[in-house]
């Protein structure tokens, strides 16, 4: 008797184990999943409001208050001065543009390659893109100083007879960042329409009903609507990838096209892109760990398998970053230029040399030591810490490239250390604003694309090969 029932029991426990592991194999009725997402949006504890109030205060004082003060007093309250005219504002710009790369990477590249694990968290990553770019935009305007004269950038007939040169690297930046911000916002919105329609259908009345009704645009889910949406999402998925690469490449050219030691590098484009992905993926995993821990029902949608998959990507990206870093370092070191040698020595043995070593430890050593282990990289809090450290490391990398590298140049009599002033509250303000925007969005729009999850669950099934039960995926499109 035992010999006939044991294999059956084994098969059942194996299937149950697979279901527990994989969201795609653990379907629930669509109505139940919708209810879970709506509950996650509506359920708010007092802790949420306390954190939101603190962040709001930081944004008011740190971001808008400090910015207002800087506008009133002038850029002199910031630490930028000869020879470091590019300070933390541009470090922040590069950092936030880097963060914004994760959304597109996850949503577009993984969609193109049909990586199924992406489904529950594409939107969480796309939101980071849009909100990260908002902070990058703020940082550029801060750097501008006399922000009320920003319209001087635009060409129109005027008495000054000054016409901007669209071939200048700063115009490339303006175009690339604007294109990426618009593209990523549209790419965030398109797959959101069916979920907004779902929220509209499940909301009885009040301002939320009107909010969803307006944003859902009258979507019903007819064959035509799905066809147009699917076509558009496919075009976006392919087209936004080169745009994503172009944005950070162009940001890198802001530095690389200058004939400065340390900056004039042909590999800066891909080095910046891989750095952006490194910090972006680190930020995604942090957001997912926090969303999973703090929002209701999210443990069903975001599982250890997702941390495991992103952890693997982080490990590969960390290796890629190390490769590009070493390539950039090696060529400059071998060149033997006197000023470049001085700069490399300054990076490693100058007063801020600790940043250089810490950058390598947290960007390379720690991810390599931790993420090779499946059990560790499946643990949300372990990967949260790794993601946080990577972001610290990537911030340091940009700090080393910009103000620390500008500290020394070919004119030693101008050498001077950069000491940030009002940049610090402004940086904290942008970080707080990013988190606050994210928190508000998490209460207004479904963070998980439910229809994409259900589409994926339809495509997945279990199949037996001999004694083993394995996961299979059908191509539905």
């Amino acid at each position, binding site marked *: 008797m035992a010999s006939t029932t044991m294999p059956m029991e084994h098969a059942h426990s194996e299937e149950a184990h697979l279901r527990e592991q994989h969201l795609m194999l653990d379907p629930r009725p*669509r109505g139940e999943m919708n209810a879970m997402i709506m509950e996650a949006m509506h359920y708010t504890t007092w802790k949420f409001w306390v954190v939101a109030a603190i962040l709001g205060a930081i944004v008011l004082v740190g971001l808008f208050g400090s910015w207002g003060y800087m506008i009133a007093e002038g850029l002199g309250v910031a630490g930028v001065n000869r020879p470091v005219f590019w300070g933390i504002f541009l470090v922040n710009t590069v950092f936030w543009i880097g963060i914004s790369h994760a959304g597109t990477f996850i949503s577009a590249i993984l969609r193109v390659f049909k990586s199924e694990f992406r489904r529950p968290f594409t939107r969480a990553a796309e939101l980071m893109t849009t909100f990260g770019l908002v902070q990058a935009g703020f940082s550029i305007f801060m750097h501008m100083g006399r922000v009320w004269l920003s319209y001087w950038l635009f060409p129109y007939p005027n008495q000054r007879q000054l016409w901007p040169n*669209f071939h200048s690297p700063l115009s490339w930046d303006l175009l690339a960042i604007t294109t990426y911000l618009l593209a990523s916002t549209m790419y965030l919105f*398109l797959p959101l329409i069916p979920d907004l329609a779902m929220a509209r259908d*499940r909301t009885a009345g009040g301002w939320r009903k009107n909010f969803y009704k307006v944003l859902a645009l009258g979507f*019903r889910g007819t064959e*035509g609507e*799905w066809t147009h949406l699917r076509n558009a999402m496919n*075009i976006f998925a392919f087209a936004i990838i080169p*745009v994503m690469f172009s944005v950070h490449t162009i940001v890198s050219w802001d530095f690389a096209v200058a004939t400065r030691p340390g900056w004039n590098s042909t590999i800066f484009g891909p080095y910046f892109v891989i750095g952006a992905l490194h910090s972006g993926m680190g930020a995604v995993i942090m957001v997912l760990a926090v969303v999973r821990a703090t929002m209701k029902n999210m443990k069903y949608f975001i599982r250890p398998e997702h941390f495991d998959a992103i952890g693997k990507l982080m490990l590969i990206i960390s290796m890629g970053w190390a490769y590009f870093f070493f390539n950039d370092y090696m060529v400059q070191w071998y060149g033997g230029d006197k000023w470049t040698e001085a700069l490399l020595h300054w990076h490693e043995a100058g007063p801020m040399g600790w940043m250089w070593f810490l950058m390598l430890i947290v960007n390379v050593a720690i991810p390599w030591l931790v993420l090779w282990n499946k059990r560790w990289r499946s643990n949300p809090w372990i990967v949260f810490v790794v993601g946080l450290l990577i972001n610290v490391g990537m911030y340091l990398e940009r700090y080393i490239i910009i103000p620390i590298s500008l500290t020394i140049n070919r004119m030693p009599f101008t050498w001077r250390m950069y000491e940030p002033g009002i940049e610090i509250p402004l940086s904290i303000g942008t970080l707080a604003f990013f988190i606050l925007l994210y928190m508000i969005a998490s209460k207004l729009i479904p963070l998980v694309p439910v229809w994409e999850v259900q589409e994926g669950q339809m495509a997945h099934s279990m199949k037996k090969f001999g004694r083993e039960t394995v996961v299979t995926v059908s191509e539905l499109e």
Partner: protein
Amino acid sequence: MADTVSLLAVFPDLEPAADAIDKLRSLGLAHDQMNVISGIPVTEAMLGRPSQWTNVPRLALGGAIGGFLVGLFLVFTPLLYFVPVGGQPIIPGPPSVVLLFELTMLGLLISTFLGVFLDSTFPSYRPMQYVPEISDGKIAVFFNCPEDERERYTQAMTDSGAETVKEAEAQQL
């Protein structure tokens, strides 16, 4: 010509909806006399329906061409305010490629986005035939049939597994 009535049959799943479409076809309805409404994308092949026409790729191409032309205008703006600088070209090649690339992509993506709005006639806030259960996983088949054959069609839908078959009334979403 006999009067027609619009009916909305709601199915719990894909299989009965596909069966119902076959039945509607055998009862003499053309494909353009019916529509399927679902909460997740169900491909035409799954339901045995003809491919849907979409203008989105063409609009995207048009937008890309438009963006490229705007890019060309910006590339050649230095000819409008000619400022010769020693050793520098008036219209440099590689930076022009950057401008053309960004504006072409911007045109392509904006027109793709607007293409969805145009093809789907979004936004549309007028009353429409719909049942909210669709976003909870139900599949609705919406069709027009002759008024005097209403019973026959309703029975065919019920036999296929429809949970409800009712006259499709336009309602405010």
